[in-house]
């Protein structure tokens, strides 16, 4: 018995040498070339024109324009014998000469052209000819807004940094880069404004990124999950956004941004739970309207999480809470249903989740059809068939709708899921069960941290100053200080007396 278990244990106890892969590889340039030659797209040949040298590069990674127009023409037109001559003559920026095999490997793999001359076997010339196949900067699709900038990040790190830099022409805008992922060696950039961002935050982020032990980083969400303070939490502890304007304003607040090559999302931290309910739209509207919409969004979230659990609790245990006017409606719509409220709710919630999953997987055009067909047809059919009541259908549909109001997609997923414990709690102990779940979640949120800073911040610990831009958004002239959460080195955004000064023409 339990053989499968013991076997697993034995296997895991065998320690594999961790750097097996790297030792096996070539440790001299000829061997490296030999290993690379196994791939069809690796090209190496010797020029026999005026300049004699060996050119090696990966065809699929190199920009042939640079190779043909700048490198080959120069080499054929001139007599160049040393690498230094070539470095001077070839009209390409940032050409380097190196002996370091690790650098050579790394550079060649990303699309540098390697030049060797017979005299200097050890040294090689590396010409950057990286060809970047990149998507055009397009309109944000996840965080769409009607007003405001319509740029979104793309999968290229350089473009993304460009999008940020052009909004922040500051010498203090620091960008630290590192490669993460044993296999993928993905470029990850830490972006912050020196002097505004707290050095502790920058150090924490840097240290956590450096310590990551992972083989691949396909997307920024890998980073979120790995460096999160509590990886088991359903709440995302880094805010991911595809809007450069949002990243920029976060940087100005003193946050640290993480950009990952190959991912159209930037991560910003430290973040708080209320930030997930703020849209960038909020800053483009007058403050009272923005405040009202934020409160509506907050209500929508609470409604989305609690409406079906309350339905279960009230219909199962607390009949006296049903208003007398609603009694007839609820009872008569429930009277045909063979299931108890809990089953009815689970059936309908699962249907909605199915629709969502199907909608997310299907191509856009079919997805819309599925949404309509699912919503209307399945809903009415379920009511007609006596599987669910009318009242519940409305509640579930509304709560599904409400969960889409969150501006950040990640927290929307969280909200989708966390209502299920509430439903079970409601079935077990009624309102007490709901309260217990609530206490559990709030306790969890209070304990949660984002890069060592409290995640539940303006509420716990209570920092009244930060409430100015949380559930409500006060006008810009009231927000002259950066959030306390960031512990920024320069807490003053602007001079408050000058902000509020009246500037009349007569004066």
């Amino acid at each position: 018995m339990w053989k499968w278990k013991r076997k697993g244990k034995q296997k895991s106890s065998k320690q594999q040498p961790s750097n097996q892969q790297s030792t096996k590889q070539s440790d001299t340039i000829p061997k490296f070339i030999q290993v690379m030659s196994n791939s069809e797209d690796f090209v190496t040949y010797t020029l026999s024109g005026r300049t004699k040298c060996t050119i090696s590069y990966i065809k699929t990674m190199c920009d042939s324009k640079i190779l043909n127009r700048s490198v080959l023409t120069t080499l054929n037109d001139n007599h160049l014998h040393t690498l230094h001559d070539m470095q001077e003559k070839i009209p390409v920026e940032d050409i380097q000469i190196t002996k370091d095999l690790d650098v050579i490997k790394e550079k060649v793999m990303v699309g540098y052209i390697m030049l060797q001359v017979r005299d200097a076997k050890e040294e090689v010339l590396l010409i950057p000819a990286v060809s970047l196949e990149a998507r055009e900067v397009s309109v944000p699709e996840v965080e769409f807004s009607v007003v405001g900038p319509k740029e979104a990040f793309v999968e290229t790190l350089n473009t993304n940094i460009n999008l940020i830099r052009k909004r922040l022409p500051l010498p203090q805008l620091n960008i630290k880069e590192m490669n993460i992922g044993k296999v993928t060696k993905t470029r990850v950039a830490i972006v912050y404004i020196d002097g505004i961002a707290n050095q502790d935050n920058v150090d924490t982020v840097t240290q956590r990124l450096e310590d990551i032990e992972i083989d691949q980083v396909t997307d920024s969400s890998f980073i979120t999950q790995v460096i999160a303070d509590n990886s088991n939490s359903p709440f995302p502890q880094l805010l991911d956004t595809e809007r450069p304007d949002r990243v920029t304003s976060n940087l100005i607040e003193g946050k640290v941004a993480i950009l990952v090559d190959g991912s159209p999302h930037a991560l910003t931290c430290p973040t708080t739970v209320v930030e997930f309910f703020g849209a960038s739209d909020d800053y483009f509207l007058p403050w009272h309207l923005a405040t009202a919409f934020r409160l509506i969004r907050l209500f929508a979230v609470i409604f989305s999480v609690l409406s079906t659990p309350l339905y279960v609790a009230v219909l199962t245990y607390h009949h006296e809470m049903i208003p007398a006017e609603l009694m007839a409606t609820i009872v008569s719509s429930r009277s045909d249903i063979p299931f108890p409220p809990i089953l009815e709710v689970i059936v309908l919630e699962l249907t909605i989740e199915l629709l969502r999953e199907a909608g997310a997987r299907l191509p856009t055009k079919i997805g819309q059809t599925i949404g309509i067909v699912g919503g209307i047809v399945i809903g009415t059919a379920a009511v007609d068939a006596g599987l669910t009541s009318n009242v519940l259908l409305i509640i579930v549909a509304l709560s599904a709708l409400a969960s889409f109001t969150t501006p950040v997609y990640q927290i929307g997923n969280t909200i989708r899921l966390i209502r299920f414990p509430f439903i079970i709690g409601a079935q077990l102990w009624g309102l007490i069960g709901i309260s217990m779940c609530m206490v559990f979640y709030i306790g969890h949120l209070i304990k949660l941290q984002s890069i060592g800073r409290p995640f539940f911040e303006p509420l716990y610990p209570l920092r009244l100053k930060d409430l100015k831009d949380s559930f409500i958004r006060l006008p810009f002239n009231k927000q002259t200080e950066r959030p306390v959460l960031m512990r920024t080195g320069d807490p003053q955004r602007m001079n408050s007396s000058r902000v509020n000064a009246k500037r009349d023409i007569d004066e």
Partner: protein
Amino acid sequence: MRNKCLFIFMISLVLLSGCMPNQSVEEVAIIQIAGYDLGEDERIRGTVSIPQYGKSEDKASATELYLTVDADSVKDVEKEIKKQSSSPISTGKLAVSLYSREMAEKGLSSIIDVLSRDPRLSRNMYLAVVEGEAGELIKSGYTQEETTSKNVQGLIETNNHHNFPTSSLHDFLYAYYGQGMNPFLPLLKKQETFVELSGIAFFKKGKMVSMIPDSKVFTFKMLKENFSAGMQDLPFREGSIMMDNIGSQVNYKMKGTMDNPSFEINISIKAEVNEMLGLDVTPNPQLANEMEKAFVDYFKKEANELIKMFKEKEIDPLGLGSFAKTRRRDFDLTKWEEHYPELDIDVKVDMEITEYGIFS
């Protein structure tokens, strides 16, 4: 190990939630109105009405099922009803509880005790005394559209905003347990095709000791609380006038020591006169003054009569004792009760008729 425990806990939580016995709202008999009469041999006859909601198509018309049982106590009534009902009983939505006059006169203390203990019962529910049989009133089924409970509840609620003083279980219990005050309940009467509020029943402890007809209810409410609704008619000269209250304020003032207290009740009313029946005069300020005077005299007389009655019966529905207790630190309940029948209470009414409608 910890994770394993947590996992087992979570799994059992999910799976065992199915084993929890519970009743969904459509499976229970929700009692919304209950009535108690005196039965034979010192027993209580309880009548309840259980609304029967139709299937989804015809939700508008609600029929009612009436159950009547004889039992020894209030809780026994519930037990006996359970024997007759096909579905479990839920008392949480009880909106009105009725008692027959004989029962009220015999004493409601034991019932009140049950009501005040039961946490399921709403403190907003209404209690009322019925002239005649409470069971009969419940069973009459006045309209097709409404259940009796909704009808009676609406009746009391609406009138609480008008001539009748606010009375709910909470108010009743407050006055019942409070020192220096006595509770009162609305009095219901079954007519041929409808139910009407016929007055107010006054209690001393749990026993009904006195009542006033609905013509005097306005005066009582005026003495008891501030309000801004209600109507009162008054014979004036050869006809009668109807006063529409738009704001009445009452103020108690205590003078003297605990050994020799005296009270001053100041009432100021703002009112409109909208109807003048049998009077063939154009309204004018002089006439208004005259009316004001007539009303002041009328209210003073009525108020004094009421207070005299309270003193005779040794009841204090106005809560003067409770008021005294908040004003004098040497308040002594026994002493107060001794003094109460000879208490000097001076009622001052200030009336202002602000308008008398459009006339040409």
